[in-house]
Protein backbone atom coordinates (compact mmCIF):
# COMPACT_ATOMS: atom_id res chain seq x y z
CA UNK A 1 0.00 0.00 0.00
CA UNK A 2 1.28 3.42 -0.89
CA UNK A 3 2.09 5.29 2.32
CA UNK A 4 0.33 8.61 2.34
CA UNK A 5 2.75 11.44 2.93
CA UNK A 6 0.94 13.86 5.21
CA UNK A 7 2.49 17.13 6.19
CA UNK A 8 3.11 17.69 9.89
CA UNK A 9 0.73 20.67 10.37
CA UNK A 10 -2.10 18.70 8.75
CA UNK A 11 -1.56 15.91 11.26
CA UNK A 12 -1.66 18.46 14.07
CA UNK A 13 -4.94 20.01 12.94
CA UNK A 14 -6.51 16.59 12.37
CA UNK A 15 -5.37 15.48 15.80
CA UNK A 16 -6.92 18.46 17.57
CA UNK A 17 -10.22 18.09 15.72
CA UNK A 18 -10.36 14.35 16.48
CA UNK A 19 -9.39 14.91 20.11
CA UNK A 20 -12.13 17.51 20.52
CA UNK A 21 -14.68 15.13 18.98
CA UNK A 22 -13.52 12.27 21.21
CA UNK A 23 -13.61 14.22 24.44
CA UNK A 24 -16.92 15.96 23.71
CA UNK A 25 -18.70 12.76 22.69
CA UNK A 26 -17.17 10.80 25.58
CA UNK A 27 -18.50 13.45 27.94
CA UNK A 28 -21.90 13.12 26.29
CA UNK A 29 -21.73 9.33 26.74
CA UNK A 30 -21.33 9.62 30.48
CA UNK A 31 -23.59 12.60 31.07
CA UNK A 32 -26.67 12.37 28.83
CA UNK A 33 -29.87 11.06 30.35
CA UNK A 34 -31.23 9.32 27.31
CA UNK A 35 -29.25 6.08 27.10
CA UNK A 36 -29.99 5.72 23.39
CA UNK A 37 -28.36 9.07 22.64
CA UNK A 38 -25.43 7.91 24.76
CA UNK A 39 -25.04 4.89 22.49
CA UNK A 40 -25.05 7.12 19.39
CA UNK A 41 -22.38 9.38 20.88
CA UNK A 42 -20.36 6.27 21.79
CA UNK A 43 -20.34 5.36 18.09
CA UNK A 44 -19.08 8.84 17.20
CA UNK A 45 -16.36 8.58 19.85
CA UNK A 46 -15.17 5.16 18.65
CA UNK A 47 -15.11 6.41 15.08
CA UNK A 48 -12.90 9.34 16.07
CA UNK A 49 -10.59 6.93 17.91
CA UNK A 50 -10.25 5.06 14.63
CA UNK A 51 -9.14 8.36 13.11
CA UNK A 52 -6.52 8.72 15.83
CA UNK A 53 -5.25 5.25 14.90
CA UNK A 54 -4.89 6.38 11.31
CA UNK A 55 -2.85 9.38 12.47
CA UNK A 56 -0.61 6.98 14.39
CA UNK A 57 0.07 4.90 11.24
CA UNK A 58 -2.00 1.97 12.50
CA UNK A 59 -4.25 1.53 9.48
CA UNK A 60 -5.14 -2.10 10.14
CA UNK A 61 -6.08 -1.28 13.71
CA UNK A 62 -8.28 1.56 12.49
CA UNK A 63 -10.09 -0.82 10.15
CA UNK A 64 -10.52 -3.35 12.96
CA UNK A 65 -11.81 -0.59 15.24
CA UNK A 66 -14.44 0.44 12.71
CA UNK A 67 -15.44 -3.16 11.96
CA UNK A 68 -15.60 -4.50 15.50
CA UNK A 69 -16.45 -1.49 17.66
CA UNK A 70 -18.48 0.70 15.33
CA UNK A 71 -19.93 -2.26 13.49
CA UNK A 72 -20.49 -4.97 16.06
CA UNK A 73 -20.23 -3.77 19.64
CA UNK A 74 -22.32 -0.64 19.02
CA UNK A 75 -25.04 -2.68 17.35
CA UNK A 76 -25.02 -5.05 20.32
CA UNK A 77 -25.35 -2.14 22.73
CA UNK A 78 -28.17 -0.55 20.75
CA UNK A 79 -29.96 -3.90 20.62
CA UNK A 80 -29.62 -4.21 24.39
CA UNK A 81 -30.91 -0.67 24.87
CA UNK A 82 -33.93 -1.40 22.71
CA UNK A 83 -34.65 -4.81 24.26
CA UNK A 84 -34.58 -3.41 27.77
CA UNK A 85 -37.25 -0.82 27.24
CA UNK A 86 -38.53 2.04 29.43
CA UNK A 87 -34.97 3.25 29.83
CA UNK A 88 -34.78 5.80 27.09
CA UNK A 89 -36.98 8.39 28.74
CA UNK A 90 -35.77 11.67 30.11
CA UNK A 91 -37.55 11.22 33.41
CA UNK A 92 -35.25 8.55 34.77
CA UNK A 93 -32.29 9.74 36.76
CA UNK A 94 -29.27 8.07 35.23
CA UNK A 95 -26.62 8.85 37.79
CA UNK A 96 -26.38 7.68 41.36
CA UNK A 97 -25.52 9.62 44.48
CA UNK A 98 -21.78 9.18 43.92
CA UNK A 99 -21.68 11.77 41.16
CA UNK A 100 -19.97 14.58 43.05
CA UNK A 101 -17.40 12.33 44.72
CA UNK A 102 -16.75 10.55 41.45
CA UNK A 103 -16.26 13.87 39.69
CA UNK A 104 -13.54 14.87 42.11
CA UNK A 105 -11.92 11.45 42.03
CA UNK A 106 -11.75 11.58 38.24
CA UNK A 107 -10.55 15.18 38.31
CA UNK A 108 -7.71 14.20 40.65
CA UNK A 109 -6.91 11.18 38.48
CA UNK A 110 -6.88 13.23 35.29
CA UNK A 111 -4.76 15.99 36.80
CA UNK A 112 -2.30 13.47 38.24
CA UNK A 113 -2.00 11.63 34.95
CA UNK A 114 -1.53 14.88 33.01
CA UNK A 115 1.15 16.11 35.40
CA UNK A 116 2.94 12.78 35.12
CA UNK A 117 2.74 12.81 31.33
CA UNK A 118 3.99 16.38 31.02
CA UNK A 119 6.77 16.04 33.60
CA UNK A 120 8.20 12.77 32.34
CA UNK A 121 10.95 13.49 29.87
CA UNK A 122 12.89 10.23 29.92
CA UNK A 123 11.01 8.45 27.15
CA UNK A 124 13.49 6.43 25.12
CA UNK A 125 12.42 7.80 21.75
CA UNK A 126 13.05 5.42 18.92
CA UNK A 127 15.10 6.60 16.00
CA UNK A 128 13.60 4.42 13.30
CA UNK A 129 10.10 4.74 11.88
CA UNK A 130 7.29 2.24 11.75
CA UNK A 131 7.58 -0.30 8.92
CA UNK A 132 5.71 0.99 5.93
CA UNK A 133 3.52 -2.00 5.17
CA UNK A 134 2.03 -2.37 8.62
CA UNK A 135 -0.72 -4.68 7.53
CA UNK A 136 1.57 -7.30 6.02
CA UNK A 137 3.84 -7.15 9.07
CA UNK A 138 0.87 -7.63 11.40
CA UNK A 139 -0.30 -10.59 9.35
CA UNK A 140 3.11 -12.22 9.56
CA UNK A 141 3.36 -11.58 13.30
CA UNK A 142 -0.09 -13.03 13.84
CA UNK A 143 0.98 -16.30 12.27
CA UNK A 144 4.44 -16.51 13.83
CA UNK A 145 5.22 -14.77 17.12
CA UNK A 146 1.64 -14.30 18.25
CA UNK A 147 0.37 -17.72 17.17
CA UNK A 148 -0.46 -18.93 20.67
CA UNK A 149 -2.31 -15.76 21.80
CA UNK A 150 -4.20 -15.83 18.51
CA UNK A 151 -5.45 -19.37 19.14
CA UNK A 152 -6.19 -18.65 22.80
CA UNK A 153 -8.22 -15.61 21.82
CA UNK A 154 -10.22 -17.71 19.36
CA UNK A 155 -11.08 -20.12 22.16
CA UNK A 156 -12.02 -17.13 24.32
CA UNK A 157 -14.36 -15.86 21.59
CA UNK A 158 -15.96 -19.31 21.32
CA UNK A 159 -16.40 -19.47 25.09
CA UNK A 160 -17.92 -15.97 25.15
CA UNK A 161 -20.31 -16.92 22.34
CA UNK A 162 -21.47 -20.09 24.06
CA UNK A 163 -21.68 -18.30 27.40
CA UNK A 164 -23.79 -15.50 25.99
CA UNK A 165 -26.16 -17.99 24.36
CA UNK A 166 -26.42 -19.98 27.56
CA UNK A 167 -27.12 -16.85 29.62
CA UNK A 168 -29.68 -15.29 27.32
CA UNK A 169 -31.50 -18.55 26.55
CA UNK A 170 -35.09 -18.88 27.65
CA UNK A 171 -35.42 -21.45 30.42
CA UNK A 172 -37.82 -24.17 29.36
CA UNK A 173 -39.27 -26.71 31.75
Amino acid at each position, binding site marked *: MEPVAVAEPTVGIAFWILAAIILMSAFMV*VSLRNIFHCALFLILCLFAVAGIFVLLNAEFLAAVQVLIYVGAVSIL*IIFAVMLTSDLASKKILQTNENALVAFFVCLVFAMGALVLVVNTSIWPYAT*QMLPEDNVAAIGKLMMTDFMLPFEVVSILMLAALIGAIMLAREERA
Partner: protein
Amino acid sequence: MFSYLALAALLFAIGLFGVITRRNTIGILMSLELMFNAANINFVAFNKFLAPAGLTGQMFSLFIIVVAAAEATVGLAIVLLLYRNWRGINTDNISIMKW
Protein backbone atom coordinates in the same frame (compact mmCIF):
# COMPACT_ATOMS: atom_id res chain seq x y z
CA MET B 1 3.46 12.05 21.89
CA PHE B 2 2.42 14.03 24.96
CA SER B 3 -0.82 15.11 23.34
CA TYR B 4 -1.76 11.50 22.58
CA LEU B 5 -1.03 10.43 26.14
CA ALA B 6 -2.97 13.41 27.53
CA LEU B 7 -5.93 12.58 25.30
CA ALA B 8 -5.86 8.98 26.52
CA ALA B 9 -5.66 10.08 30.16
CA LEU B 10 -8.64 12.41 29.79
CA LEU B 11 -10.65 9.75 27.95
CA PHE B 12 -9.85 7.23 30.68
CA ALA B 13 -10.92 9.70 33.37
CA ILE B 14 -14.23 10.35 31.61
CA GLY B 15 -14.81 6.61 31.30
CA LEU B 16 -13.99 6.13 34.98
CA PHE B 17 -16.50 8.84 35.88
CA GLY B 18 -19.13 7.03 33.84
CA VAL B 19 -18.40 3.67 35.43
CA ILE B 20 -18.70 5.12 38.92
CA THR B 21 -21.78 7.25 38.41
CA ARG B 22 -24.01 5.36 36.00
CA ARG B 23 -27.02 3.62 37.46
CA ASN B 24 -27.77 1.90 34.20
CA THR B 25 -25.83 -1.30 33.54
CA ILE B 26 -25.62 -0.62 29.81
CA GLY B 27 -24.22 2.83 30.62
CA ILE B 28 -21.52 1.19 32.71
CA LEU B 29 -20.62 -1.11 29.82
CA MET B 30 -20.40 1.86 27.42
CA SER B 31 -18.09 3.71 29.80
CA LEU B 32 -15.95 0.58 30.02
CA GLU B 33 -15.57 0.67 26.25
CA LEU B 34 -14.32 4.26 26.55
CA MET B 35 -11.67 3.14 29.04
CA PHE B 36 -10.58 0.28 26.73
CA ASN B 37 -10.17 2.80 23.94
CA ALA B 38 -8.03 5.07 26.10
CA ALA B 39 -5.72 2.14 26.81
CA ASN B 40 -5.60 1.31 23.09
CA ILE B 41 -4.61 4.87 22.17
CA ASN B 42 -1.78 4.64 24.70
CA PHE B 43 -0.57 1.31 23.31
CA VAL B 44 -0.53 2.53 19.73
CA ALA B 45 1.13 5.84 20.61
CA PHE B 46 3.88 4.09 22.54
CA ASN B 47 4.26 1.66 19.66
CA LYS B 48 4.76 4.45 17.16
CA PHE B 49 7.05 6.69 19.16
CA LEU B 50 9.07 4.35 21.38
CA ALA B 51 9.26 0.86 19.83
CA PRO B 52 8.24 0.86 16.18
CA ALA B 53 10.27 -2.21 15.25
CA GLY B 54 8.20 -5.04 16.71
CA LEU B 55 4.64 -3.73 16.25
CA THR B 56 3.93 -5.27 19.64
CA GLY B 57 1.73 -2.39 20.76
CA GLN B 58 -0.57 -2.73 17.77
CA MET B 59 -0.82 -6.49 18.27
CA PHE B 60 -1.67 -5.95 21.92
CA SER B 61 -4.38 -3.43 21.00
CA LEU B 62 -5.83 -5.95 18.56
CA PHE B 63 -6.13 -8.53 21.31
CA ILE B 64 -7.61 -5.90 23.64
CA ILE B 65 -10.27 -5.12 21.03
CA VAL B 66 -11.13 -8.80 20.68
CA VAL B 67 -11.32 -9.34 24.43
CA ALA B 68 -13.46 -6.20 24.78
CA ALA B 69 -15.83 -7.55 22.16
CA ALA B 70 -16.13 -10.82 24.09
CA GLU B 71 -16.68 -8.88 27.29
CA ALA B 72 -19.41 -6.78 25.70
CA THR B 73 -21.14 -9.92 24.40
CA VAL B 74 -21.23 -11.66 27.76
CA GLY B 75 -22.02 -8.42 29.61
CA LEU B 76 -25.00 -7.62 27.45
CA ALA B 77 -26.27 -11.19 27.78
CA ILE B 78 -26.10 -10.74 31.54
CA VAL B 79 -27.94 -7.41 31.18
CA LEU B 80 -30.74 -9.11 29.25
CA LEU B 81 -30.96 -11.83 31.91
CA LEU B 82 -31.12 -9.21 34.66
CA TYR B 83 -33.86 -7.38 32.80
CA ARG B 84 -35.85 -10.56 32.46
CA ASN B 85 -35.59 -11.43 36.14
CA TRP B 86 -35.80 -7.98 37.76
CA ARG B 87 -37.76 -5.92 35.23
CA GLY B 88 -35.03 -3.29 35.34
CA ILE B 89 -31.31 -2.99 34.99
CA ASN B 90 -30.34 -0.28 37.43
CA THR B 91 -27.52 -1.28 39.70
CA ASP B 92 -29.12 -0.02 42.89
CA ASN B 93 -32.10 -2.32 42.41
CA ILE B 94 -29.91 -5.35 41.89
CA SER B 95 -28.27 -5.88 45.24
CA ILE B 96 -28.57 -9.59 45.85
CA MET B 97 -26.21 -12.19 44.49
CA LYS B 98 -28.03 -15.30 45.65
CA TRP B 99 -31.03 -16.11 47.72
